[in-house]
């Protein structure tokens, strides 16, 4: 079985982002970049399936600038077998990302795709679902548990009221939620070994995918600031203020 995992280069989750001065985006100058945390969980899940003998090969793909090689190297150091970089300096919207991934699935003959449920920059939460539609594959989104059984995969999904389990035929698309697993750290020997693993480079144009989108960002603004209020000294004062000042109880 071949598994494809998506790896997106995003700003590190612990960096406090700020809107840039001309209001066109956020200022990422010199910001630390990393694998999107949900993608890291996807890589971990794929590697565990390989370690369990259920998968033969794990292919990591990233769509982004040349520097996204760094994130692919991390995915290789964690245990992926090889990488594919679909290089572009443009921002690629979810539908185009899904179209690119579809071409790779067709070329490589993929049985299972594991993606993060969203990336922490654009917060779209769309690619896995769109890819599933384009390939006409079933989808197990927001997964907190995934188990292969008799040529199918049972996915337990985090939903608003609790959890839902669905059983999917393979090939299938799974998107990860936070509690699917706890990703490992890459060891130094594995980081060294990863340098020798192959990364193929291609572009959206070479894959025949038009990445222009009809959605444009007009402006980006900081959210309204919330200012600190007052400190109260006792429960009595708190209850009093909630009743008479804030009038919420």
């Amino acid at each position, binding site marked *: 079985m071949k598994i494809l995992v998506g790896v997106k280069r995003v700003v590190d989750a612990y960096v*406090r*982002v700020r809107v840039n001065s001309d209001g066109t985006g*956020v200022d990422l100058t010199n910001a630390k970049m990393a694998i999107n945390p949900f993608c890291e969980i996807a890589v971990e899940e794929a590697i565990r399936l390989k370690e369990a003998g259920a998968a033969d090969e794990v292919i990591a793909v990233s769509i982004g600038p040349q520097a996204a090689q760094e994130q692919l190297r991390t995915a290789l150091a964690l245990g992926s077998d090889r990488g594919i970089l679909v290089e572009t300096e443009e921002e690629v919207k*979810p*539908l185009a990302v*899904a179209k690119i991934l579809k071409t790779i699935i067709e070329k490589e003959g993929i049985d299972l795709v594991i993606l993060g449920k969203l990336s*922490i920059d*654009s*917060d*779209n*939460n*769309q690619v896995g*679902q*769109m*890819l*599933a*539609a*384009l390939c*006409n*594959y*079933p*989808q197990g989104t*927001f997964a*907190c548990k995934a188990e292969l059984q008799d040529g199918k995969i049972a996915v337990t*999904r*985090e*939903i*608003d*009221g*609790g*959890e*839902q*389990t*669905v*059983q*999917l*035929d393979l090939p299938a698309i799974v998107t990860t*939620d936070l509690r699917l697993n706890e990703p490992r750290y890459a060891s130094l020997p594995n980081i060294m070994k990863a340098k020798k693993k192959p990364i193929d480079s291609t572009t959206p144009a070479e894959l025949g995918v038009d990445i222009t989108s*009809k*959605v*444009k*960002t*007009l*402006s*980006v603004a*900081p*959210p309204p600031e*919330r200012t*600190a*209020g007052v*400190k*109260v*000294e*006792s*429960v009595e004062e*708190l*209850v009093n203020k*909630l009743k008479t000042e804030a009038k*919420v*109880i």
Partner: protein
Amino acid sequence: MTILVIAEHDNSSLKPATLNTVTAASEIDGDIDILVAGSGCQAVADAAAQIAGVQKVILADHTCYEHQIAESMAPLIAELGKSYSHILAAATTGGKNFLPRAAALLDVDQISDIIEVKSADTFVRPIYAGNALATVQTEDAIKVITVRTTAFAEAEQGGSASVEASDFVAEQTMATFIEEQLSESERPELTAAKVIISGGRGMQNGENFVLLEKVADKLGAAIGASRAAVDAGFVPNDYQVGQTGKIVAPELYIAVGISGAIQHLAGMKDSKVIVAINKDEEAPIFQVADYGLVADLFKVLPELEQAL
């Protein structure tokens, strides 16, 4: 313009998220139809018909829609949606699951999680966990949108829409529903509650959440938790408030033993009044709290229960 709103329901009752979504639709300015897709869900369609401003309810009642799984919902929405200018669903785990799949079938991008309607083609949505707000414009002929429910009021009752049946059936075998484990609770749902009391790592263990429950009982509040508390196994994941959990905006949000990681703030900072109870004076939660109480929660919670 014509707008199709996808109803959120459990086959027996209409969820309030639908009402917030209808309000977002009404700000786009067009005729609003509602799609109720489910199994044995006539009562839901009847309830949807009573929402003010709704022109028509389309009822797709078939066993293939019973659990609203995406593999059946998306073809239905894409088929019916072809004749609309906008398709809207609540940005709940339901809408987030099936709507992008429908958008891809229609070959259009989706605009996720809008918090404001600027015009029929321009919307505001949070990015970077709410640390920035992007104003986006789409030229797609069919605009597919999910709506952050806390950003829009609930639509009023008083409508009398007609109910029409759809005979479109999207049976499939690639995905099978196995089971659902829903948290049983007498309390209001987190996303619909007027008052929420949430616990963090400071609660120390799951048993101590009973202290929050006692206060919640007095206030008719829902109970939430930070990611730290969920990851530590104190409470189930559906309690989680935050960027990757539920986004809430109640009248009153009481954060107990929660430090205030960006991740958590992203999920609750639009609450009307925020109270923080934490023994660490430096906790970031105090920077967004209207009322802060620096104290030991194990002393404060029983006092609070008494005082209410």
